[in-house]
């Protein structure tokens, strides 16, 4: 009797497992198909992109669009701009966000300051970009900073810094304070304890924070659309959007550039993936 019961529950378990694998497989196909479609279209001639019925696999693969995007058109310039802006913003947000996050996690302040400052920093993240666009536009116009990468870095810092502070704060809160105390007893300063003890321990959190800041700044569209108008300052998303013109949409070129745009981030994500999940589980989770 017991035997029968056990086999039955085991076969039910197998069935559940199969259903789970099936669901995950469907999710994978749905997730990857549009990515594949971008890649596939980037290797097709224009006429084949519009083929009816669609060409599931490029029949006459070509690198024409990559040549157009990266040799004839300045997509490398856009990518370089995106890179500089993303790295600049990420550096500022991570450095100052880490310091502020550490301060809010470790120090006490008079009159509930800690609570108020934490909340205020969090609340600055709520301002939708569209809301700050007009004043930022006027501000950059006044200081003659439109069409500069510095303007984009400043603007992006406004929404990455609160995020970084918040992540790092919860991260440091999870580290045991005793290690820093021990370092201070051994003769290190308070700042030294932060630099030599807390910071190295927080490396996974730094990685997770950095990749999110990078993704956000690398892909941002709306602020860049308003603040930059020249090729020398425009970023990749603006370059891509620029190929949707009133008369034609350059699908092949857009696919080539869009596909290439995600490659560096995906590679980076694979490299830091261990830190990413761990970083998030220790950071954002405990707000």
């Amino acid at each position, binding site marked *: 009797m017991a035997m029968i019961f056990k086999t039955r529950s085991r076969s039910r378990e197998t069935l559940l497992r199969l259903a789970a694998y099936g669901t995950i497989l469907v999710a994978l196909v749905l*997730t990857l198909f549009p990515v594949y479609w971008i890649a596939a279209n980037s290797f097709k001639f224009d006429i084949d992109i519009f083929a009816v019925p669609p060409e599931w696999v490029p029949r006459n693969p070509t690198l024409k669009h990559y040549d157009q995007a990266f040799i004839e058109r300045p997509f490398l310039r856009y990518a370089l701009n995106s890179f500089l802006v993303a790295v600049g913003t990420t550096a500022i947000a991570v450095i100052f966000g880490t310091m*502020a996050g550490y301060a809010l996690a470790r120090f006490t302040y008079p009159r509930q300051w800690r609570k108020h400052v934490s*909340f205020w920093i969090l609340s600055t993240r709520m301002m939708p970009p569209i809301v700050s666009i007009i*004043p930022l536009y006027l501000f950059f116009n006044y200081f003659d900073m439109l069409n500069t990468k510095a303007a984009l870095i400043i603007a992006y810092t406004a929404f990455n810094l609160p995020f970084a502070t918040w992540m790092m704060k919860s991260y440091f809160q999870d580290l045991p304070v005793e290690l820093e105390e021990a370092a201070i007893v051994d003769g290190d300063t308070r700042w030294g304890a932060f630099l030599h003890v807390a910071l190295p321990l927080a490396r996974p959190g730094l990685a997770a924070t950095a990749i999110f800041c990078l993704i956000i700044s690398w892909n941002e569209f709306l602020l860049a659309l308003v603040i930059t108008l020249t090729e020398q300052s425009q970023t990749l998303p603006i370059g891509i959007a620029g190929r949707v013109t009133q008369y034609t949409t350059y699908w092949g070129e857009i696919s080539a550039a869009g596909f290439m745009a995600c490659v560096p981030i995906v590679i980076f994500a694979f490299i830091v993936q261990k830190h990413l999940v761990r970083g998030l589980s220790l950071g954002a989770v405990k707000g």
Partner: protein
Amino acid sequence: MKSSSAASLETGGRFERWAERRLRYLMLAPAVLILLALTIFPSLYMFYAAVHRISPNPDLPWQFVGAANFARLLSDGQFQVALRNTAIFTTVAVSVEFLLGLGLALLLDKYIRRLTFLKTVLMVPMMLPPIAVAITWKLIYEPQFGVLNEIMYRLGLPTQAWAGDVDLAMFSIIVADVWQWTPFIFLLMLAGLASLPVEPYEAAELDGASSWRQFWDLTIPFLKPVIAIALLLRVMDALRLFDLVFILTGGGPADRTKVLSLYIYQVAYRFADPGYAAAISLFVLFVTVVLSTWFMKRMRLVE
């Protein structure tokens, strides 16, 4: 030699001791100052703009109109349409993303914990530039040669205009947004599940609690802080949706996908009325802050 280095330590020590005493403020100061400069100034400026009528001609002075721009909101039919569309989009998209993200995370956590690369693969949509995502979906939705209609046709289902159809446009936007941002919820949930304690589950197992009961009585309460943060971030982002509608539908057809961000953009740049755009922006900011504050207090996200 020894005494001079001691002396320099002494002089350096005074500054160092001062810095050490003030460290709690010095470490906080850069972030606070940057954020003050970048948020307080725009907010005040925007408030100033919102009570003025601003001519597209920069040489003309701003004309003070008091609350007129805010009063306009009440009778502006387009604004109400945008507000309604934003509410529909935010509610539906975030709910679907949450259910799918949580479900997938539970499945993956239970059945294929080891395959970490699978997690990164499922996260790829989040890493693509939203603008490229929008353009790709436009191609997929294309009524004549789009791949979605080909699949519909092969399955014997009716083909549609998707993003160009009055009734399906919002649905099409939501599908694309769900595709891109479910991975974000999925990742946060997965991280939350990875940090669950084991003991309560062993105890529940001994008590003979069903897996359904364990899910409701243990997993959900434990995940509550993650769920709260994931929802908060997604709602804040959904309220500012722009790229997808800008490319996929431009707000049409018949204003069915005109959301607040797009409307503000149109008012400011196409209708060249920054004063009124600032008033709408302030309204959106007000709603976001009130909603988020209420939500964070309720979920006890700030101590």
